């Protein structure tokens, strides 16, 4: 039986995967993947809670809409930063991005 808890469990698992990637990976693009996965885990929760607890209104869906828009913009700026980092360091390894200037 699919209940609200099932959605929370899936979302928690996605969050775990995202946190793992965020803490272990060194490749800047993979870190961005991890961030996107975490945002999506949160989106599932918003949609599930608004469906199960607050059904005639769609306020949770509105939050998901803004969240999707914001994370798309975050990806755009993040990838531009990665491009600049690659141009400066010739690498996208976050360990090598330890200089404050250039």
């Amino acid at each position, binding site marked *: 039986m699919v209940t609200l808890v099932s959605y929370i469990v899936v979302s928690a698992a996605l969050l775990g995967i995202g946190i793992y990637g965020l*803490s272990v990976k060194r490749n800047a693009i993979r870190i961005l993947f991890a961030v996107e996965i975490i945002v999506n885990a949160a989106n599932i929760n918003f949609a599930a809670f608004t469906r*199960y607890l607050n059904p005639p209104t769609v306020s949770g869906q509105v939050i998901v809409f803004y969240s999707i828009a914001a994370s798309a913009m975050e990806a755009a700026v993040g990838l531009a930063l990665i491009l600049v980092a690659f141009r400066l360091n010739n*690498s996208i390894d976050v360990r090598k991005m330890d200089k404050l200037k250039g």
Partner: protein
Amino acid sequence: MEVTLAVPPDVVFVILATITLLAAILALQAKELIYGAIGLGISFIGIAGFFVLLDAPYLAMLQIAIYVGAVVVLILFTIMLVRREEGEEVTEKSERGEGAAGLWIAGLLAVSIAGIAALAGPNLAQTPPNAELPVSELGPVLVTQYPVPLVILALVLSAALLGALMLAKVER
């Protein structure tokens, strides 16, 4: 005996959850970054499936059009811009058991959230209340009830567009 010819939602849910989680793991663990981007895209499509199950079909389409249609394209583009010819440039080897530590932290977090949810489970709604949400519901709510976030969204979009362009521009 009258039955509707339909797969029970549980089966669909389990399949979707498996696809989403495996694809998310592929996104982080695949050797080649292109495969990682594909895994990320499949994971997004799985989440769109969850939105369909949650009676939010417009959100599902939004998810596919924005994430798979645009963000994954941008990621693929950037991957092709930052490749070096010698292949994968970042070694993913963890030092001094960082990988194990990350796994522990993430697992602990996920298990604790899931555990709390499961403990609170009996108090939460077991089945979704029957409510028909027409597709046209999202638009009026967006425009009439939340007009200020809309203007902020426009500013965020402009800032992101110009900021990203100025960052990526070649400086002379």
